[in-house]
């Protein structure tokens, strides 16, 4: 019985293709925007997560300056190698610790030159930042102040093109050094800057021969587990306050930067956007529902005589109600289906254009169908009830 009624409903929809199409447009747009938004939201979250992972696992950075005012090397005291050693020694769960100092310099090899950032650091930097050696090897403790370097993928390409750089000599800010290894490329970070545009050199080489001092610009800490991050962060803060002799209550001249917080902030921005646009989509669904109700009311009026005929030959009110309700639900479900397809297409298109990874969110399909069915039932009920309550004689006489 229900199948026969459903078949009648579908036939009625097919009969008025244009009208049905226009009626469902509201639902199509509503569902498409919900699907596109959720999918894009997931895409950008995935991108942020991937970016954060690419910057290093559970990375904390101890930087000079104030958290409120940002890093200000000129006013805040720099760190020392001893600070990094103390952290490695005294902070449990700290995992790997890498002191770093950076220096902008031009690298020259043969006729090629490239302006880049030189990172003076130790062997542990690789693991802390999640870099991989592509060819050759990393710096070692033994090469304390030696003229050796490891090239990031961008620098290698700029200076040597497709040639093998291993063993080649170059000058970095005037300091001669030999290439001992190259890094596997990581691509851009969350802010779009190239993570492969760097040269790694021993900490002491950069301090002494490029910068002419013994300062450590920052200490990077890779925490063993994500759960330990808050604890390690507070341990780092109290250790450094002690070492830098900052009295309790006094503002610190350093801060611990948590990459995870940045990631969460970025995700919460995406979340707010999604919620906002989701509300717009909900309004669109509502408008779509009203459109369906409107056209179903028109349909009930147009088909009053048909309703009379059905009642005369023995259809109960419930069966008439079911027929019109199924018609409304079928309309909105068709709209929902078109919306899901359109939404997925749109989100794949946008993801491609924005350079986000394409993501499939299976549950959103279920939610979209549930919503459109609910809209069909909700807004189809009133017209269907109007049809069911018609008096058969009046309905038969209707012109």
């Amino acid at each position, binding site marked *: 019985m229900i199948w026969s009624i459903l078949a009648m409903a579908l036939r009625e929809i097919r009969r008025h293709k244009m009208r049905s199409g226009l009626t469902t447009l509201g639902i199509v747009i509503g569902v498409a925007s919900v699907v596109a938004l959720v999918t894009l939201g997931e895409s950008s979250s995935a991108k942020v997560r991937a970016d954060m992972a690419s910057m290093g696992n559970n990375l904390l950075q101890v930087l000079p300056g104030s958290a409120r005012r940002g890093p200000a090397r000129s006013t805040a005291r720099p760190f020392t190698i001893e600070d990094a050693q103390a952290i490695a020694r005294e902070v449990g769960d700290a995992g790997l610790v890498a002191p770093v100092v950076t220096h902008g310099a031009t690298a020259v090899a043969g006729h090629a030159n490239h302006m880049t950032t030189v990172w003076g650091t130790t062997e542990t930097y690789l693991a802390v930042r999640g870099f991989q050696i592509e060819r050759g090897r990393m710096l070692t403790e033994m090469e304390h102040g030696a003229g050796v370097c490891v090239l990031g993928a961008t620098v290698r390409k700029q200076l040597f093109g497709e040639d093998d750089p291993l063993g080649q000599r170059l000058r970095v800010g005037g300091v001669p050094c030999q290439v001992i290894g190259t890094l596997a490329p990581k691509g851009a970070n969350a802010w779009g800057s190239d993570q492969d545009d760097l040269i790694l050199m021993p900490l002491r080489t950069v301090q002494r021969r490029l910068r002419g001092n013994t300062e450590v610009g920052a200490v990077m800490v890779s925490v063993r587990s994500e759960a330990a991050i808050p604890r390690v962060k507070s341990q780092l803060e109290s250790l450094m306050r002690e070492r830098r002799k900052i009295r309790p209550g006094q503002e610190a001249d350093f801060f611990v930067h948590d990459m995870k917080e940045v990631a969460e902030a970025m995700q919460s921005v995406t979340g707010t956007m999604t919620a906002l646009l989701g509300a717009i989509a909900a309004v669109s669904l509502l408008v779509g529902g009203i459109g369906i109700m409107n056209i179903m009311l028109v349909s009930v009026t147009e088909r009053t005589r048909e309703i009379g005929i059905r009642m005369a*030959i023995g259809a109960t009110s419930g069966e008439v109600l079911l027929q019109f309700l199924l018609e409304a639900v079928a309309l909105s479900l068709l709209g929902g289906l078109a919306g899901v397809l359109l939404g997925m297409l749109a989100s794949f298109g946008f993801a491609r254009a924005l350079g986000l990874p394409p993501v499939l969110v299976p549950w959103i399909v279920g939610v979209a169908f549930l919503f459109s069915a609910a809209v069909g039932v909700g807004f189809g009920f009133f017209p269907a009830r109007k049809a069911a309550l018609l008096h058969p004689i009046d309905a038969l006489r209707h012109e």
Partner: protein
Amino acid sequence: MSERRVLVELRDVDKVYGTGPTAVHAMRDVNLTIEEGDFVAIMGPSGSGKSTCMNVLGCLDTPTSGTYLFRGIDVGSLDRDQRALLRRHAIGFVFQGFQLLGRTSALENVELPLIYQRVPRKERRRRALEMLAVVGLEGREHHTPAELSGGQQQRVAIARALVTRPSLLLADEPTGNLDSARKFEILDLLSRINRERNVTVVMVTHEPDLGEYAARRIVFRDGRIESDERLRPLEAWVS
């Protein structure tokens, strides 16, 4: 003469539309008994209450007062849906304006009541085809009402009314929209069905010559039965 079974019985039926000074008294004190197998013509000028009587007999409308018994069942005690079920299983309608579903084939129009009777698809089709053959519409099964003449449309409507094998066929001005040649074809069909299928036929008409076809003629005037005469003995009909 054996006593025939009573199919429908109206006892002191009144039907009033509206209330107060504008109230219309469509049926007054109507008492009527119709036996199974009869062919009754209900006649009278327009506004005489004959169509109201038909609607009451067809359970499309309920009396304001009085009792309507269908096979001994008090229709007044049935609710809307129960009356729908009674129509579905026991009553067939033929209307003046045919009342077929537009843009729907003759076959599907005839199948429609069987859908509500939950008859399985295959049997539905078989019975609908068979009934279309009975009314002489072989080869037109897939035509829509717009592609059929008035007489053919009325045949589809008759097939639709009979496909459920009802015990009562109600025809409200069944020839009102047809020319005189088609008129008598439809009447012949109705009386043939009445005799061969033992279906009780009640036909409302305002044309005196059509009344001659029936076995019994009832004339309404101002909501009352003015005359009720038997034109042919009931036994002569049913052999």
